[in-house]
């Protein structure tokens, strides 16, 4: 599951030829609307390789959140299928981590206990939680240190700022070393400065785990900064109208935002959103 951290090489893992972890095969979605069915997602076909970070951008209501729900297995795809390691997703996968715009930390737990939550639920950690508590605490502390929350482990969520809560929520989504990380507009509620700070932290966290990342965002710079591939969705009923590969080296930093290549990629995505 762990890739060696070869940060100097162009770290775009999707370039290396290996079987996909996730495959979208003619995925569609419809919901009942005023007596008939309304098509939300028309036909999505794509595949995501292990260790690849992808973003979905597109107009509001085009079905981005629905895609996450289908991948997680919370609402399996009703039309077509999504496969994880070749197996159709029919019920909640266990090897995923999720973070939403709302950090939903549990107010009765301290920051570190919130981060530990997945280990109390997911096997094999769950079975050995008591014996390995010390080791798990170290894991949680390491993650919290990465996002500079080491001094807030014993605080309760209401004692943290919005950005700090979101950082804790990211740590929680990654502590159990998931194979797939699902992020639904995780920084949408934060101010611009905090948001850019979060990109760097998320990248750092993700590079430790190197799982598949799927990010929903409407911040196109965020998508370019974090992704290996950006999928642009059209308006409802939606398709993938454009795919952009981002080959910037990792770890990426905020200076790269000023580079020609970054801005070129940004405007390419921007153009395709506007032309629909």
């Amino acid at each position, binding site marked *: 599951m762990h890739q060696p951290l070869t940060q100097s090489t162009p770290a775009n893992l999707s370039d290396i030829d290996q079987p996909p972890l996730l495959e979208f095969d003619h995925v569609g979605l419809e919901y009942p609307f005023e007596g008939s069915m309304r098509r939300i997602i028309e036909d999505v076909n794509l595949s995501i390789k292990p260790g690849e970070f992808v973003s979905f951008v597109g107009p509001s209501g085009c079905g981005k959140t629905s895609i996450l729900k289908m991948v997680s297995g*919370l609402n399996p795809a009703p039309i077509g299928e999504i496969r994880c390691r070749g197996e159709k997703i029919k019920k909640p996968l266990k090897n995923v981590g*999720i973070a939403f715009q*709302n950090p*939903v930390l549990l*107010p009765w737990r301290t920051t570190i206990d919130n981060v530990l939550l997945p280990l109390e*639920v997911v096997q094999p950690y769950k079975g050995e939680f008591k014996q390995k508590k010390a080791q798990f605490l170290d894991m949680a502390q390491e993650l919290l240190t990465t996002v500079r929350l080491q001094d807030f482990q014993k605080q309760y969520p209401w004692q943290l700022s919005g950005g700090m809560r979101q950082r804790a929520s990211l740590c929680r989504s990654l502590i159990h070393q998931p194979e797939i990380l699902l992020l639904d507009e995780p920084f949408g509620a934060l101010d611009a400065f905090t948001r850019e700070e979060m990109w760097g932290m998320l990248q750092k966290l993700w590079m430790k785990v190197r799982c598949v990342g799927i990010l929903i965002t409407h911040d196109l710079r965020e998508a370019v900064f974090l992704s290996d591939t950006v999928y642009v969705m059209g308006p409802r009923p939606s398709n993938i109208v454009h795919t952009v590969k981002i080959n910037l080296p990792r770890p990426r930093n905020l200076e790269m935002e000023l580079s020609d290549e970054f801005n070129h990629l940004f405007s390419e995505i921007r153009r395709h959103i506007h032309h629909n």
Partner: protein
Amino acid sequence: MNIQKFMRSKAGTFVLPFAATVMLFVVWELAVLIFKIPPFTLPSPSKIVQASIQFTPQLLAAGWRTLVTTLVGFALAIATGVVLGFSIGYSRLAYLTLYPLLVGFNTIPKVALVPLLAVWFGANEIPAILTAFLLAFFPIAVNVALGLDTVEPEMKDVLRALGATQVEVFQKVGWPHTLPYLFASLKIAASFAFVGSVISESVASNGGMGYLIVQASSSFDVPLAFAALLGLGILGIMLYGFFAVLEKYVIYWAR
């Protein structure tokens, strides 16, 4: 001394209500003196204290009985309310079948049931226990159901995506999230149970504070009736205070 600061201090929250109570009694005492109100209309606080001392054994016995009756009814109400609340909160079937019934039942003034309860069970503590129970279980059930219903869906998604079972979601999120709602209802329900048992005692019973007040009033021993009222006030504050303090310790995390 800064008044604003004092009102927000810890001492202020104790001293001010206490001072207000003392003031009330002083004004009352003076009013009775000045307007020469006869004791069988409105006894002065000093007369009430006198009666309390004179009838201490009766008051203690009646108070004890009312307390026990209230607590037994209240315990039944907690058990029933929590079970009902969870059924309604978790089962669509229970929600559809039980909820309208409960709401309908709750609109019946429970006092109206006391005579019937006395016919079925006799003039003893059972109707009082049942009245306490009937008044108290509804707010508990409703609040528990509300607590379960207000768990953020995203929080459930986080756990379900990890493969958590329904039971685990309940343990990790549903139950703790419901606790503040439960405790808020316990404070109210304790007062309701108390009202229920006293009402029942005064309509059909053979003991307890309600019974004592009816007895005292019908023999025009108004100071004793007031002493009993005072005792009820103290009991009520103790009940409420107990659950308020318990709440502070159990759900310290809910601001």
